[in-house]
């Protein structure tokens, strides 16, 4: 299983802040995961339809979207951060 966490308008559009899914096939990238999720019903397409607006972290580290998920336990999807 793989934990997905969502923040900001990604979370709002999807309507949940966390879910657990079947581990994707070996070699799947974050971008591949996003494309799969965006095909779902509900707010997923709105939240994840445009990957250029998204950033990601794997196990609490920022990664480019072409990163392979591998053995990660948690993938986070969110808009660009606005701290400070």
């Amino acid at each position, binding site marked *: 299983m793989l934990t997905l966490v969502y*923040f900001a*308008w990604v979370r709002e559009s999807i309507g949940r802040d966390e879910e657990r899914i079947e581990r994707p096939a070996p070699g799947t990238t974050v971008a591949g995961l996003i494309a799969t999720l965006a095909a779902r019903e509900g707010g997923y397409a709105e939240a994840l339809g445009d990957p250029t607006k998204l950033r990601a972290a794997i196990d*609490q580290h920022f990664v480019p979207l072409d990163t392979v998920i591998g053995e990660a336990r948690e993938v986070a999807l969110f*808009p660009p*951060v606005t*701290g*400070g």
Partner: protein
Amino acid sequence: MKRVAIQSGDFDMAAELAALESLGGGGVASFTGVVRGESGLIALELEHYPAMTAPQVDRIVDEALARWPLLGVSVIHRFGRLEPGARIVFVGTASRHRAAALASCAFLIDWLKSHAPFWKKEHFADGATAWVAAQAEDEAKAQGWNA
């Protein structure tokens, strides 16, 4: 001295600065970010990624400590609903060298703006809300420190 706090509550500026002043370094620099109260904004709601925020901030504070001759660094970042005038973030640095204190303070706030996993939602008097978009400028500033 290293202090990293991610909290919903406010903090005591005098106490935070006194802790840095007491390190005997000669110079203390600070930056405090405050919620602006313009354009009908009634509150700023800060969401963050709890499992990631403190470890990431801790890591960048370590980087500042390695890069400059600092005696102390404090970073406090609030989350939750904050009204205009409320403090959002505090960065304080102490050093024997004023340039090191000032430069590391600038480095840390630039990094927080572009890399700390926070998201801000604006709430307006008319009931409208809007997520604050990241500024390309902030990303560029943080990248500049890598040059």
